[in-house]
């Protein structure tokens, strides 16, 4: 089961993971990652903008790539857009599989791609106003891990 969603309002990850888990009665393991707006560093709010014609199809294609690459029973991707406050969940990825390695690796794969390869533009609000967040080198290094693996196989 593939379930990919963009949400404009705050969400409770448990309210998605519970039904997702119940939808796969044959699973052996389920791995979930929740990313939250990290408090501190003077950040008062985070805004995520996206471009509808690219963002949701891109997330859907990423889910297909993970389902194709790992032996999964289901994959859930939930991503916020709009203005978020510190501690609000930004992203939830949950993978259900017969075996734990597939579930854990699929979450790792999906998060690396969501972070660096998906169509979101972010800006932070600080005391002196809004500031756009630039790409990070670490994200590209994270993504390269999966490309190397393809070459090695």
């Amino acid at each position, binding site marked *: 089961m593939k379930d990919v969603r963009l949400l404009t309002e705050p969400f409770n990850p448990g309210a998605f993971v519970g039904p997702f888990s119940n939808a796969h009665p044959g699973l052996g393991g389920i791995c979930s990652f929740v990313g939250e707006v990290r408090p501190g560093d003077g950040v008062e709010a985070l805004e995520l903008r996206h*471009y509808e014609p690219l963002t949701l199809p891109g997330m859907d294609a990423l889910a297909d790539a993970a389902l194709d690459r790992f032996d999964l029973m289901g994959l859930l991707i939930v991503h916020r857009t709009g203005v978020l406050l510190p501690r609000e969940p930004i992203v939830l990825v949950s993978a259900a599989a017969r075996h734990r390695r597939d579930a854990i690796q699929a979450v790792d794969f999906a998060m690396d791609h969501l972070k660096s390869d*998906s169509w979101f533009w972010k800006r932070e609000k600080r005391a002196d106003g809004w500031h756009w967040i*630039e*790409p990070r080198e*670490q994200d590209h290094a994270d993504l390269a891990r999966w490309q190397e693996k393809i070459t090695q196989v």
Partner: protein
Amino acid sequence: MALKLVFLGRLADAAGGEEREVAAVPSIAALIAGLEPDLSAALGGPRVKIAVNGNIVADRAMFTLRDGDEVAFLPPVSGG
């Protein structure tokens, strides 16, 4: 006889808004050249991708625009 332009991320600041309409022109080069010089410079860089009607343009020099097209300018996405 118009094109809809969409500016993402910091390009919205450069354009003074997230969207605008301009008169239709046949090429992306002509479209960019017709904008304010600062915005034109910001959009023309190699790191800015362009999507027309939701599809990324592979070769912008060869691409022909049509009336009613939505042209989106996409700067590098933000890090995690």
